[in-house]
């Protein structure tokens, strides 16, 4: 991995197996939101414009939940399946994902964009699995980015190691280092009854890690002062050297 000064990077390839409880919890969030949207829809005071907005939000929330269930199913069957690896143009794939997710991002007042490369790059991957990983990271970025900010899909080539990295950069809470350290210190000193409470299940990262493994790749994350980049690294296609 290419280290970058001033940023914290984490290898996420050893992410632990989530429990059924974690999967249930991850699905609970969109279902709870759907229920609240539906309850609001029942309110007689809702205007036509708000009604249309609520229905769109219900559709988009349902699609997010369905993506998670589909990923869970795929993840559970990984051992039994063979995944064809082929040269893929990640820029084209990312462009398709931007098109697909733009309505969701716009509904959240955020922008999803692709940082374009001068030269086309090819990597070796299974198109479906790579697409799921990037969609997963994009969903995560949507959740943790600031309204009005852009989430960027980024593609980098590390020619010396023959690796191509596809990352999703978000601009999340502008956490100063001091504030971060203070919060972490406070948390570590909290009594066990509080400290031991379950936190985010990390189910999405586990699934992405599994999908990356199936393609002989790995996932990782870089924490920036103003957000994070989650990425997947895969072997560059031999055709890269011809470019």
């Amino acid at each position, binding site marked *: 991995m290419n280290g970058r000064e001033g940023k914290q990077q984490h290898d996420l390839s050893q992410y632990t197996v989530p429990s059924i409880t974690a999967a249930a*919890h991850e699905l*609970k*969030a969109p*279902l*709870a*939101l759907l*229920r*609240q*949207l539906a*309850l*609001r829809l029942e309110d007689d005071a809702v205007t036509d414009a708000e009604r249309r907005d609520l229905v769109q*939000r219900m559709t988009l*929330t349902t699609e997010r939940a369905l993506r998670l269930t589909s990923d869970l199913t795929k993840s559970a069957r990984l051992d039994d399946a063979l995944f064809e690896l082929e040269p893929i143009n990640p820029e084209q794939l990312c462009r398709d994902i931007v098109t697909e997710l733009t309505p969701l991002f716009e509904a*959240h*007042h955020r922008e999803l964009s692709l940082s374009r490369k001068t030269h086309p790059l090819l990597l070796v991957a299974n198109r479906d699995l790579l697409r799921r990983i990037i969609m997963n990271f994009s969903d995560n970025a949507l*959740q*943790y980015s*600031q*309204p009005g900010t852009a989430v960027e899909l980024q593609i980098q080539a590390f020619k010396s190691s023959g690796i191509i990295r596809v990352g999703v950069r978000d601009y*999340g*809470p*502008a*956490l100063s280092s001091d*504030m971060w350290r*203070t*919060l*972490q210190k*406070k*948390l570590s*000193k*909290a009594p066990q*009854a*509080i*400290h031991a*409470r*379950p*936190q*985010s299940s990390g189910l999405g990262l586990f699934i992405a890690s599994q999908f990356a493994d199936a393609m002989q790749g790995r996932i990782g994350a870089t924490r920036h002062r103003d957000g994070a980049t989650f990425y997947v690294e895969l072997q560059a296609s031999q055709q890269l050297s011809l470019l």
Partner: protein
Amino acid sequence: MTTKQQTILLIEDDAWLAELEAKALEQDGYTVVHAPHAPAAIVAIDATPPDAIVLDVLLGGSTAFALLHELQSYEDTGELPIVLCTNMAETLSLEELKPYGVRRIVDKSTMLPADLVAAVRSVLL
């Protein structure tokens, strides 16, 4: 309706859910300030000390428990009544959380908007 306009700090990282919860509270006469994460909540508390806090448990960047601990560290914020509004309600104990200012726990997955309003009203009595 409340007689005095009281301010509720709503800490919820899901913008759409926050909008719905804010609407329910505003309809009952409260002024709602929304913070999507713990750092924004700290800034909001410094700017306008709220009368009560509605807090989600799983937040981007840090959990609510880090924030609860932070709030307890200061005299002025340590007394703020807190309503936890969470999908994890069934795994939490109100008795254990009372020392951290938590007065009510509302189950986000089963609540009606009126339940959240009732919980807020009860901690402000």
